[in-house]
């Protein structure tokens, strides 16, 4: 095994992120790091170093089964890593992200009021009001926090489920950030998409 480097401990970041959000939802904004850094790596460097070395989430999915034997280590059905599903899931996820932005916009414009809850798996509403004290920041900033935290937690849950059912990093085969950065890298090398 290769020796551990500082960035091998970034799975802690993933845990810290979710814990911080339980105390104050405004920390959800830190999730933007996980959106922007991989894109910067891909656009500027033409690589997936984020996925390959720095993504705390990917590391967490690899780490948990090693520690707690919580994965079946079974090969996932191949459609889960097919191009069609990956691109489809990317589009779906982007639409959900656009919806978060739209809700934020509505609150910003005063067309709707702040909703202090998160939505898990796009279906289940969970009251989350204790994580926010009204008036701390403009309401749209809080609204975006609830929305982004919902997306982050939902995707983490899906990731944990496929981690347990299949191989540890199965989420990475259809993770929207992974798919998007690979598309950018392929475009940069002028390799046709598979």
């Amino acid at each position, binding site marked *: 095994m290769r020796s551990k480097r500082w960035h091998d401990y970034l799975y802690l970041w993933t845990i810290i992120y979710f814990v911080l959000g339980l105390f104050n939802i405004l920390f959800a904004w830190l999730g933007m790091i996980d959106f922007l850094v991989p894109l910067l790596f891909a656009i500027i460097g*033409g690589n997936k170093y984020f996925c390959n070395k720095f993504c705390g989430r990917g590391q967490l999915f690899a780490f948990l089964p090693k520690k707690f034997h919580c994965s079946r280590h079974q090969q996932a059905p191949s459609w889960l890593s097919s191009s069609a599903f990956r691109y489809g899931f990317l589009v779906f996820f982007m639409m959900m992200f656009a919806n978060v932005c739209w809700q934020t916009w509505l609150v910003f414009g005063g067309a709707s009021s702040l909703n202090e809850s998160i939505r898990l798996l796009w279906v289940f509403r969970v009251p989350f009001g204790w994580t926010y004290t009204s008036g701390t920041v403009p309401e749209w900033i809080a609204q975006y926090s609830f929305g982004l935290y919902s997306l982050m937690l939902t995707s983490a849950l899906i990731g944990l489920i496929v981690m347990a059912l299949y191989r540890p990093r199965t989420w990475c*085969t259809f993770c929207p950030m992974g798919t998007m950065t690979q598309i950018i890298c392929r475009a940069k090398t002028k*390799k046709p998409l598979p």
Partner: protein
Amino acid sequence: MKRFAEVNKARCVSCGACANECPKEAITIWRGCYAVVDVNVCVGCGVCSRTCPAGCIEMRLCDEK
């Protein structure tokens, strides 16, 4: 007969899970596009093949090439 790992480049999602687990550090991710195995370094242990979440690494015998 020497075994080595072969990546199906069309299916690889370039996640790097294989590279992180390879005991010989024989795998690199080529420009974020797909995994490449250095067959001279690979000892054919099969760890990468069992790790790959996309199931796109096959173990081959050298003379199959």
